[in-house]
């Protein structure tokens, strides 16, 4: 009964509906089969993928598409490694050409050390992509003003970082994430920086619409167990958010009746 309710509570991105609110990355796994199995366990319906040169020297190298069927799982091509608008546009136009992908993840990085996004290039690129008919999910910093400007530039989802990519630090600025969540009608998806399952629960309890996780699953000692932990954590966080938490108080309030004490 309650689980049926959750199935109806769908994540909607650019008019497409998804039951799972967990998006997973496909990088950093030991093998493609490990990656495919982790995705299956996570229940994710969207996975991020990178666009790279085909290895022309090794013709028999396994292809991602042979392990993860793009007809069953939505591929979300990214622009990882792009440090300017030109490269990001080139990458996503190529991604679209591979097979009609229009739903994309834009990330334009500005700093090689902390991998923070260059928001000026990001805004510029979002505008161009939206005009070209792309549905753009945008990796951004946790600045509410920038998030607002992204929305005005035609983004389809706002994806603020929790912490630097791959850092595992969890959500560093909960207040900003909440402000970003409350000021927009677009889906807000926490992208980057989560370290453990409870971080995902916190993101969902803040009201976020989903989370994107790669390193925390792929680099866990037991990726399959962590994939399941994240799946459950996202569900738990969403249910908790939908349930309406009690208000906080500094006073104690007994859970058992005070009347009839012997």
């Amino acid at each position, binding site marked *: 009964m309650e689980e049926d309710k959750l199935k109806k509570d769908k994540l909607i991105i650019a008019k497409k509906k998804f039951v799972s609110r967990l998006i997973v*990355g*496909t*990088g*950093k*796994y030991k093998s*493609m089969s490990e*990656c495919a199995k982790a995705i299956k366990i996570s229940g994710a319906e969207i996975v*991020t*993928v*990178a*666009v*790279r*040169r*085909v290895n*022309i*020297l090794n*013709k028999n190298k396994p*292809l*991602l*598409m042979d392990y993860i069927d793009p007809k069953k799982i939505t*591929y979300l*091509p*990214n622009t*990882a490694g792009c440090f300017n608008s030109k490269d990001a546009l*080139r990458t996503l*136009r*190529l*991604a*679209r*050409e*591979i*097979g009609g992908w229009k739903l994309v993840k834009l990330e334009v990085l500005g700093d090689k050390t902390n991998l923070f996004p260059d928001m000026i290039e990001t805004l510029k690129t979002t505008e161009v992509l939206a005009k070209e008919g792309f549905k753009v999910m945008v990796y951004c910093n946790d600045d509410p003003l920038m998030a607002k400007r992204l929305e005005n530039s035609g983004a389809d989802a706002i994806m603020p970082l929790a912490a630097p*990519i*791959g850092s595992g630090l969890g959500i560093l600025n909960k207040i900003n994430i909440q402000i970003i969540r409350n000021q927009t009608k677009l889906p807000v998806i926490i992208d*980057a920086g989560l370290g453990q399952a409870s971080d995902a629960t916190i993101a969902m309890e803040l009201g976020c619409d989903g989370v*994107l996780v*790669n*390193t925390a699953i792929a680099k866990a000692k037991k990726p399959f167990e962590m994939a399941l932990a994240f799946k459950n954590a996202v569900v738990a966080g969403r249910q908790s958010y939908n349930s309406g938490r009690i208000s906080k108080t500094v006073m104690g309030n007994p859970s058992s009746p005070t009347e009839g004490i012997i």
Partner: protein
Amino acid sequence: MKKIKIKVNGKIKTVLSNSKLSDLLNNLNIPIKKVAIELNEEIIDKKRSNNIKLKKNDKIEIVHFIGGG
């Protein structure tokens, strides 16, 4: 037959001067449906690869999806 040098994914390759792009793709065993192709920084329509003649110093990029976050 005369040969020409082209660049494919950053590597120099020598092909016959009357080669078409489709010959190169066949030769490299490229799964057309799973890639995108750029010729001199312009995306080309994969279906038209047998109409495109390769020229000296052409730069070709063939990309596909790999694991990423």
